[in-house]
């Protein structure tokens, strides 16, 4: 086993999260190497979205710590400069009075900080990333007038406008046609080529070997994490997808 990779983009230590009485994540220890395209895979209710939200500091864990490139995740200044986030698409009010351009421009807000207005450079950046996702013709559309795939591209563009080092994406392929899916994965690979790290919550097991080079299998706890060719095999998958109850029971 080679342990040559020293540079970790994200290190999760001892992370435990619970919603009221229900444990959602148990003792997660996870290291995500820099410059990888990683999938987070697991059955429904395995805590994939929760893991992502906990890493981003959107919810408070019971115990544990998250570090980004040796910085604690509580360092907000670091977070907003270096972390990009694409939430699940259902989470916003689609009838909000905002155009595609407005939404993508929001990606620049983190760099600007409080009160300061977007500059010319931000506006140019917005158009550049819109072009990158092929949505430049839709810049002035209201967001409810887009198809599911287009909406997903807009949110991707918003994350790109953050010019982050690490990207977190919660099921970017949900409700998206095959063509858009291919386009998005090409874009993600391009981001990876620039030395950036991409973490994707993913559902479709079949495409994992094609799309990703690193994979984390979780079901309440981390079952396995590593390069796809080493980790992504029948044994681990069975461990991941067998019922949550027996998993916990056998361990304690």
């Amino acid at each position, binding site marked *: 086993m080679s342990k040559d990779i020293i540079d970790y983009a994200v290190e999760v230590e001892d992370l435990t999260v619970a919603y009221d009485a229900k444990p959602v994540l148990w003792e997660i220890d996870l290291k995500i190497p820099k410059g990888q395209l990683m999938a987070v895979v697991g059955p429904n209710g395995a805590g994939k979205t929760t893991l992502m939200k906990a890493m981003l500091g959107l919810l408070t864990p019971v115990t544990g710590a998250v570090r980004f490139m040796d910085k604690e995740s509580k360092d907000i200044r670091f977070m907003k400069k270096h972390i990009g986030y694409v939430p699940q698409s259902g989470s916003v009010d689609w009838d909000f009075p*905002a155009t595609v351009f407005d939404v993508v421009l929001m990606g620049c807000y983190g760099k600007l900080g*409080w009160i300061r207005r977007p500059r010319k450079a931000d506006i140019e950046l917005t158009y550049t990333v819109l072009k990158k996702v092929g949505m430049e013709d839709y810049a002035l559309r209201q967001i409810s007038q887009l198809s599911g795939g287009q909406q997903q591209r807009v949110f991707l563009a918003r994350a790109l406008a953050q010019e982050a080092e690490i990207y977190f994406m919660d099921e970017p392929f949900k409700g998206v046609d095959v063509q858009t899916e291919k386009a998005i994965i090409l874009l993600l690979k391009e981001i990876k080529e620039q030395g950036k790290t991409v973490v994707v919550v993913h559902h479709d097991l079949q495409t994992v070997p094609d799309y990703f080079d690193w994979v984390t299998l979780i079901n309440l706890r981390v079952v396995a994490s590593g390069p796809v060719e080493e980790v992504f095999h029948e044994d681990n998958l069975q461990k991941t997808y067998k019922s949550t109850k027996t998993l916990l029971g056998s361990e304690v």
Partner: protein
Amino acid sequence: MTAILSLLNDYTFQTVALGSGLLGLISGVMGSFAVLRKQSLLGDGVSHSALPGVAIAFILLSSKNTEVLLLGALLSGLLATLFIITIVRHSRIKFDGALALVMSVFFGLGLVLLTYVQKIPNSNQAGLKRFIFGQASTLLSRDIFLMSICGFILLSLVVLFWKEFKLFTFDSDYAKSLGFSPKKLNLLLSLMIVLAIIIGLQTVGVILMSAMLITPAVAARQWTNKLWAMVFLSSCFGAVSGVVGTAASSMIPKLPTGPSIVVCISIIVIISILAAPGRGILHRMYRHRKNRLLYKLEGGQINVPTI
């Protein structure tokens, strides 16, 4: 015509119209955010809950100064908001239930206190009751001054934190991931909305205040897909109906100001929902008809086969 001219020169009318117009403008701006955050009815709750604050301020300080009474209203409105948030966060009761309970209980407490005030010798409670129904005609120029200051503060804050409010209202999780604390923004925005409600109580009263907040914003939303345009239009609609409503109530005898303003703004919202270009109901019907026609011309059947 001469009636209108002489009305425009009337000092009382000028004061009241200015006040109602200002109120419409402010509540139009703050209402846009309340509506977009799906908190339309919070305004109703806060305004009803302001009543005990008015009464307590009067009992404690025995002053009928608008500033003092409104301060009481502000505090009790905020307290009610706090109660609602706590109940929703720490129990399984949903927002609407908590809102209905807190506002009716606070209003009940207000009534209890008003009947108590009635028994205090030498106190005429007429000045307090005007908060239930609102009495625009009692607006004085110092009230207008107070409204202008509050309005100026609110508008400056909106301009200053425009980017943050927009981001937070649209997607609060994303705002957090960008390093803007949703807790702080929520507090600031809620505080501003409550303030806007409180300064309107004197003019339209606790029952109709929620309309001043919601209706201009909903009307404005129909005409535009841009937030700044929506806020601007909403404030215009609010201001126009404030002035027109006041004018109507001065020219027509026995037409109360508050309800007259509400009817004005409701007419605007009805027109907007029906006729707004690209979105309104009339446009929808037109498009539907055109589609059917096109389909017919192309030789298809009108009744699309149902599966």
